[in-house]
């Protein structure tokens, strides 16, 4: 359902949630955002709970860095320690670390909701149609967005070719040495891919005319307004619950 929404109101909502996550220094608020984002993916978008948990891993690893910094290097995290002085995790340093840890996951999950429910092509079209993004920049961005899956696919081809030369089936997940050896060929591929995309776009007239039609640009519907109001209301409720009601208990 979120996938059918106009990408730009959805982007604005996600940015507001990210800003709230950064502004509110409360672990319950951060945890609430994480839970709501996960529920949106699992219940509304029908994503596998395992996938959602797996998505949290890189953000959790990132957040764990904040947690250890706050706990072990108090001088560097003095501001955060003072902000977290009233949190319920005993030591202010550890409380600050927990908030930063949860914030990293919360920001990651809100971003994941946007990325997983927005088709890049629709997003770029919406930017060009509504925010006058230059088509040259828009399609360059578009190519960059698609480069990631293309790199993954090319990496698999190179791994197959190397496995063939070694006469054995490639491992499911490449080891660190194999991964490092893929960097240069993939860089070369990325340069060639970008060059080919530039030729393809040039040969098919990108930038030849000052005006440009955008076929199938996302149209705003009442569902987008309902989504914006509902999600901002949900954020307000979460804030009130965590900062007023919960604290009053």
């Amino acid at each position, binding site marked *: 359902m979120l996938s059918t929404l106009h990408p730009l109101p959805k982007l604005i909502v996600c940015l507001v949630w990210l800003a709230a996550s950064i502004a509110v220094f409360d672990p319950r608020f951060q945890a609430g955002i994480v839970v709501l984002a996960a529920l949106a993916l699992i219940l509304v978008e029908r994503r596998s709970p395992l996938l959602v948990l797996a998505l949290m891993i890189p953000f959790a690893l990132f957040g764990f860095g904040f947690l250890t910094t706050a706990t072990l290097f108090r001088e560097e995290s003095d501001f955060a320690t003072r902000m977290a002085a009233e949190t319920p995790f005993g030591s202010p340093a550890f409380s600050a670390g927990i908030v930063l840890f949860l914030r990293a996951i919360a920001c990651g999950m809100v971003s994941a909701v946007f990325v997983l429910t927005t088709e890049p092509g629709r997003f770029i079209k919406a930017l060009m149609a509504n925010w006058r993004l230059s088509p040259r920049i828009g399609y360059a961005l578009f190519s960059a967005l698609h480069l990631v899956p293309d790199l993954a696919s090319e990496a698999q081809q190179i791994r197959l070719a190397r496995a063939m*030369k070694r006469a054995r089936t*490639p491992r499911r997940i490449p080891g660190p040495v194999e991964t490092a050896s893929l960097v240069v060929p993939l860089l070369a591929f990325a340069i060639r891919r970008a060059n080919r995309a530039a030729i393809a776009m040039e040969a098919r007239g990108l930038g030849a005319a000052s005006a440009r039609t955008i076929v*199938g640009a996302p149209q705003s519907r009442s569902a987008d307004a309902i989504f914006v109001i509902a999600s901002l209301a949900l954020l307000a409720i979460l804030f009130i619950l965590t900062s007023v009601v919960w604290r009053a208990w």
Partner: protein
Amino acid sequence: MNVAFSAPEAAPAVAWREVAVRYPYATAPAVGPVSLDLRKGERLLILGPSGCGKSTLLNTVTGLVPATIPAEISGEVATLGVPAASRSPAAWSASVAQLFQDADQTLCGMTVGDEVAFALENRALPEEKIVVRVDRALDRAGVPPSWRTRRTASLSGGEKQLVALAAVLAQEAEFFIADEPTAHLSPQAAARLHAVIGGQGQTFLVVDHRLDGLIDTIDRVAIIGRDGTLIADGPPRDIFRAHGARFAQEGIWRPLASDLDRLLRGIGIALDTPPLAVSEIIADLDRRPAGDQSAAGTVIRHFLWQRIAEPAEATGQPLVTLDSAACAPLFAKPVLRDVSLQIHPGETIALLGRNGAGKSTLGATLAGLLRLKGGTRTGPAGGFAFQRPETQFTEGSARAELESIVGKGSAHVDTLLSAWRLESVATQHPFELSQGQKRRLALATLTADTRWPFLVLDEPTAGLDAAACDEIASRIAEIAAEGRAVVVITHDLDFALKTCSRGIVLDGSSVAADAPLLDILRDDRLLAGAGLATPEILRLAAWMEAAPC
């Protein structure tokens, strides 16, 4: 195919005047000097050995060379009456549609629907008009409507080529340029493209190696030699009769009928009109006396013997066995199910099917590169020649690639470079080579490696000239004679007939047929269902069986 030839107008669509192109750091020009005219409404085919600069010449038409692809260009190129450099390559897109040799150079990585609409959006056409043109182009190219929302990066090589074709057809430009358009297309899809070229009202400039089916839609042929200069130019019937022997020496493709015509003329049987299709020769022979038919029969028997592999019985223990296998690309769902087959020593097998049927997946599975999602595979790993040859290169030069297989300093490296006509590019980085040269290098390294009990070659002839295809065919015969096996994934049924005795047809996510190749290619219903078509040479074989000689 009967085609009403166009009546070219006087002003040229393209005029090359002493044009020569030299790429940065290259010691010799990639092409030229060439002087040639393409008249409006004319359909011109450019032929030549791979690496002779055909693609470079096409890229000068809209100024891609040198505006986007850096190169030093001398001489003059005028397109539709004005200097090509007077407009940007993008500005030419309204009047010139260009289909590149590599589909990734035509496609930008969007969904199929967006790709086909892209050029029309850039011209700011009304949305309703774009929708109509996109529908029409998808239909003409034979792209199923269900593909619209698929990303082009998720398509197979042949499927990408179809979408690229739809994308340039949608431009409905007055001038259509196509570089190796049928290299990865199934015979049915290639026939659809030939029908487009045979249509009226457009100017066509085509580079292609698969001539049968295409050549009778062409008004004029220009031949470029190994040195990048024009060696002949004229109507196809006259050109192939006058220069056929020289083209054969230079490794340039000729229509099948043209080769047979040359042999028949050697015994005094000359058609009044030089033939371009085997059916024309058969029609002429049918009108001749029994003596001529008998003499022709002797020549034709030898002609067929050179082009149709002998049936061979499977012997010995199987090299590799698939039992109820479910085959899938890496990290993807199975595309083939319940595949059971064996490959025996000395077998040569053609793996056939429409674009996207799962041929490459089955080939990689046979070679032991992909894990099965179900069933079992027994047997050692095999060598695999990838559809995109770049994937296989790991060294800094063509010579180093070969040395990595046969050993540094080995004299055999020079023999291989010479056999595959790569001497002149031995010190170049593999990525700097032309598509045909890259494929030759990839095949040279793979076939020189004697570790493999069997090889799988994925589209080995795509983009190759006749000499390279002959080299591959003879290597396949040698490998089979050594007791190893070869699986050839191909859309080129003439090449399949020449090299393979057994055929496997994929259709409907499984094996539709596994039988002697000749039996498969005589089964019209099977061929039609699998996107294939009867090769022209079998018409000749059928005539021989029916003729009183």
